[in-house]
């Protein structure tokens, strides 16, 4: 890639170096060539970033690309296009595909397909157990060698504590963490939303916060017992967050991620829709696992993101077909198509003064990189250091826009945010030195 690209005049936020200043960023041969004041770049294509922010490309360590096997919901091409629109230059693909990513062959398919059709970098996450059934370990060594950056049975918890223990021990040989979807199946059984007053109002079976807290505590205990690294997927409860914070204080190798929707939306969105009002709507687009919870849980997650108890934001992008959501609430699929709204939704926290923009950017870049130790796979990823891959985003934290799922690049239009006004948009995304997304520039 010999194209030269100059991103000029933007305010650069680079969490690794702590930079927060006006800089030009020069990209050459797919790498960051330089970042400095008033760079000269003859012959380079110029992206005018004056009045805008420039940051490393976002890294999503939790997305469901549905490919292979469920391409009607999403595939690697559409999913990575959606990622690019959302400002993500790296996406980690969860293994709950069909067949699941539990053998080298499927991993190689994912990587090959990504090489052919992906707009951004794709890291596969391998299954922990064969078939994700939670009974026997998958060939973690082979999966690691094939290119998996972590292991998870996500979608499902690793319910058997002994299996989780063995997995932690075994995976540590390969320097990969186990990502656990913490949900005690017997407590959460039949629950289609958060157990509480809203579920009671709607007459829906709920899963209690304790279902998450119980397994988070278990995983922390196992991390301690094994000395291995456990990463808590999509944490959503105050109890879970507090357990993670305490574990970190004790120096245990526990990391955690949170989704944009768990930082902003509550169970009220299920009952009344994101637009609010008093009429019950039973919005299946707000049906997600873990469910949208109470205001107190949301506040706990926001505080934890701000103070670092939660390491990073991850979208848990979960696209579904229209008919899988246009049905009775109990029967609707769980999941929110979130890549394209992640930044705009998280910006609410910045505008409310609860999380500084720099911290949000860190939580979308260096945070996830460190949580899964991705720098071991791609040095410099998540930074704008010279020599790092040319993964850059240009952001406009003030740009107002309204969420219109019919314009998503993702095949999944399942979002509770349809029609909602957000403030904060990704103006351009550069992945590996190529411009993979660019908003239309308003004619002056």
């Amino acid at each position: 890639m010999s194209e030269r690209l100059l991103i000029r005049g933007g305010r650069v936020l680079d969490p690794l170096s702590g930079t927060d200043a006006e800089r030009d960023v020069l990209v050459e041969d797919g790498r960051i060539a330089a970042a400095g004041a008033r760079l000269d770049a003859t012959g380079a294509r110029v992206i005018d970033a004056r009045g805008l922010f420039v940051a490393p490309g976002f890294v999503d360590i939790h997305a469901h690309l549905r490919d292979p096997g469920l391409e009607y919901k999403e595939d690697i091409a559409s999913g990575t296009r959606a990622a690019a629109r959302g400002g993500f230059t790296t996406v980690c693909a969860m293994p709950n595909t069909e067949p699941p990513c539990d053998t080298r062959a499927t991993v190689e398919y994912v990587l090959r397909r990504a090489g052919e059709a992906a707009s951004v970098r794709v890291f596969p996450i391998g299954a922990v157990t064969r078939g994700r059934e939670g009974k026997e370990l998958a060939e973690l060594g082979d999966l690691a060698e094939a290119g998996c950056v972590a292991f998870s049975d996500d979608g499902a918890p690793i319910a058997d504590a002994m299996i989780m223990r063995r997995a932690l021990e075994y995976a540590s040989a390969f320097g990969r963490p186990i990502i656990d979807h913490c949900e005690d199946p017997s407590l959460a059984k039949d629950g289609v939303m958060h157990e509480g007053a809203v579920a009671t109002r709607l007459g829906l079976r709920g899963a209690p916060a304790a279902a998450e807290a119980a397994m988070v505590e278990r995983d922390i205990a196992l991390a301690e017992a094994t000395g291995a690294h456990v990463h808590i997927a999509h944490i959503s409860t105050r109890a879970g967050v507090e357990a993670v914070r305490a574990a970190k204080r004790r120096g245990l190798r526990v990391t955690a991620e949170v989704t944009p929707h768990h930082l902003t939306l509550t169970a009220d969105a299920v009952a009344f829709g994101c637009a609010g009002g008093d009429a019950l709507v039973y919005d299946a687009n707000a049906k997600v696992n873990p469910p949208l919870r109470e205001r107190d849980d949301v506040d706990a997650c926001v505080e934890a993101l701000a103070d670092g108890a939660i390491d990073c934001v991850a979208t848990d992008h979960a696209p579904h077909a229209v008919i899988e959501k246009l049905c009775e609430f109990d029967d609707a699929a769980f999941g929110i198509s979130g890549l394209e709204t992640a930044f705009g939704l998280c910006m609410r926290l910045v505008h409310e003064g609860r999380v500084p923009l720099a911290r949000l950017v860190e939580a979308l870049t260096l945070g996830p990189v460190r949580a899964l130790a991705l720098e071991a796979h791609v040095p410099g990823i998540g930074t704008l250091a010279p020599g790092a891959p040319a993964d850059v985003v240009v952001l406009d934290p003030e740009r107002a826009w309204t969420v219109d799922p019919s314009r998503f690049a993702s095949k999944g239009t399942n979002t509770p945010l349809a029609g909602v006004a957000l403030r904060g948009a990704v103006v351009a995304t550069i992945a590996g030195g190529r411009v993979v997304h660019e908003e239309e520039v308003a004619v002056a």
Partner: protein
Amino acid sequence: MTTVRMAPETTLTPDSPGESAWSRRHLLDVDDLTADEVELLMTTADAMKEVLAREVPRVPALRGTTIITLFYENSTRTRSSFELAGKVLGADVINVAASGSSVTKGESLVDTVKTLQAVGADVIVMRHGRSGAPYLAARHAACSVVNAGDGMHAHPTQALLDLYTVRARLGDVRGRRVVIVGDVLHSRVARSNLWLLTSLGAEVTVCAPPTLVPRGLGDTHEGLLPPVRVESSLDRAVEGADVVMALRMQLERMHGGFVPGMREYARLYQVNAERLARANPGALVLHPGPMNEGVEISHEVAHGLQSQVEEQVANGVAVRMAVLWLVTRTRAKGVA
């Protein structure tokens, strides 16, 4: 083509509020009915009751209207009650038994509703095993949707007929003490009754083992949940009660770990003569049916003087006639 002008006739009742009295196309729950709307339902049911008492209990009010009952769950009593209500009003009633509820089992709910509408349904009376299903139907229906019971969520016509029955005997429910005893967690009848009775100023106590009380009920969740007292002892709850409503206890609850078994449940929560004696004299006993005599209610009380069970069923037809009448008032048909 001449248009017939309908000048305002002076036979409009002077105390009738006219168009503004009822503007709902659907009846999905009782949780947001205004006091005026409830009153209108009650007085309309009075009129319907009088029709049922006639030598020839038939009126042409809904002639040309097509009512389709779409029941995803079996129910002889509710379905036949709606069917009769429609027929007394002169409507054409078609019963559709739908099995299953998800896309994988057949036509989706939205497609089914659209098909029925295309067939010519003016009103779809729907019973479904999933909470919220009628809301989905109403969003996609141009015709009226009447909820005949959805999952664990609501059963508006049952609550209305229960209210009608209580009012017939006790008058205004404001300040009256009502005890609802049984599996409140899984009971849509209980939930709708809680909303309706508390909105009209009744003091409602829910009595059940803690495992069968929905989360949040009894705490303050203003606007989200009705304000009720929660009591786990029936002996205490029934003191001074004017109305005791017993809910059906299902055998399956034992398997879910909700109660140890029917024997213990009956011992602690059965509405029997001894407990009824602690309520106010002349207290009414209600049950939505079908009854498990010997479990949640004793045979003696079920068929005793204070039992309103038969009245409930009779009133059910009149109340459902009132509901069908009112939801079809908003239907604007083209004038030829």
